[in-house]
């Protein structure tokens, strides 16, 4: 009975996730597409839970269903403010014989992918055993955090650089996302006064718990960014004194600390980010704390668009 219900849950979730994606990409109304995409992220979170990937579920809940949704909604509003014509999605540029041959091509790709997935070796064991064997050397007891910040730390270093690079790219274009003109009002103001401290608290909790349970710098950073976004939305601007070098410092704090550690380990240990077991726990906490601050500030800055103080060029 239980296996039957379990299978029904998986089938329902898979159908839901595919149909949400399909409707999000096929509906004529762009706003509808965005809301469906947010719902898609929500259901995908449940899929990660079913696949025993709780760390991923946490990241998806914070980023896929949360931050991305807010970014898309803000961009939609800006698009409409720039040119009301631009939010109309006119029917596709491909029609007739082109559309049919494209559909056949896509179906072939889908069949090939499906075959590749179907024939995945089932006796493949991956690196699970190796990670488990070296876990006590890594300084943390959550295997995903161990992989992200110790075994494959250079991946994470580059990833944080990518985030910073995206922000530099966004800043160089000089597009501001419009601030809400109306005052937030008593209700929203009270909500943000209650939620912002709670969001910061939850971010700190996720950062701390990431050492031994699902959590970590990215999830914490995304929750921190949600606090920043909520402050912006309730009309609290960054004070001009903080918008100059303190903002830049917060942006590079994580990448710079990580890079410094990479250079130091290269000199002392002879290998990039080789953390010695007795120091690993503390070093990971330092990297993760600075990274959380930088990720949170970077995502909030991406929500703003241009650097504060600069108008549309």
């Amino acid at each position, binding site marked *: 009975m239980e296996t039957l219900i379990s299978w029904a849950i*998986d089938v329902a979730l898979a159908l839901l*996730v*595919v149909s949400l994606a399909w409707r*999000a*990409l096929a509906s004529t109304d*762009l706003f509808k597409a965005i809301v469906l*995409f947010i719902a*898609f992220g929500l259901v995908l979170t449940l*899929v990660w839970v*079913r*696949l025993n*990937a709780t*760390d*991923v579920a946490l*990241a998806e809940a914070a*980023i896929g269903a949360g931050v991305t949704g807010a*970014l*898309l909604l803000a*961009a939609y509003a*800006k*698009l409409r403010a*720039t040119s009301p014509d*631009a939010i109309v*999605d*006119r029917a*596709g*540029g*491909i029609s007739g014989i082109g559309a049919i041959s*494209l*559909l056949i091509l*896509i179906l072939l790709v*889908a069949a090939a*992918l*499906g075959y*590749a*997935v179907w024939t995945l070796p*089932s006796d493949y*064991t*991956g690196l*699970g*055993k190796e990670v*488990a064997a070296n876990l006590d050397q890594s300084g943390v007891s959550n295997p*995903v955090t161990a*992989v*992200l910040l110790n*075994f*494959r730390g250079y*991946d994470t270093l580059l*990833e944080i650089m*990518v*985030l910073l690079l*995206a922000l530099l790219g966004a800043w160089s*274009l000089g*597009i501001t996302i419009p601030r809400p003109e109306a005052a937030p009002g008593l209700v929203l103001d009270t909500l943000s006064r209650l939620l912002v401290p709670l969001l910061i608290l939850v971010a700190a909790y996720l950062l701390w718990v990431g050492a031994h349970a699902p959590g970590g710098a*990215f999830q914490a950073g995304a929750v921190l960014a949600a606090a920043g976004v909520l402050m912006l939305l309730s009309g609290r601007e960054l004070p001009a004194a903080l918008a100059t070098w303190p903002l830049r410092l917060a942006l590079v704090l994580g990448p710079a600390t990580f890079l410094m550690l990479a250079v130091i380990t290269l000199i002392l240990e002879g290998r990039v980010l080789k953390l010695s077991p007795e120091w690993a726990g503390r070093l990971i906490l330092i990297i993760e704390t600075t990274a959380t601050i930088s*990720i949170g500030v970077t995502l909030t800055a*991406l*929500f703003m*668009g241009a650097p504060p103080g600069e108008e*549309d060029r």
Partner: protein
Amino acid sequence: MSVALFYALAGAGLFSIGLHALLVHRHLLRKILAVNVMGSGVFLVLAAMAAPNAIALSDPVPHAMIITGIVVAVAATALALVLMLKLTAETGQAVLPGREEENS
């Protein structure tokens, strides 16, 4: 068939749906959504690599890669959205310019 394999097939489906939408639609916001859906499809296949059957020890490396992927996706999405807004500010349309000339 294991649960992971089942979801991986759904992932292959998501990738194909996203690819189709990316090629067919002209609006850039839709293309950005399509790339995100394609990415999620890839992540689902990766997750199936983490635990191809219920007996094996779940592999944390693909999970870490998916988390990395999700963060890179949000950074790329944010940059792409700003690029789209810049193009709209310049041309008044959220559509890549090349096509316009073909049609007229």
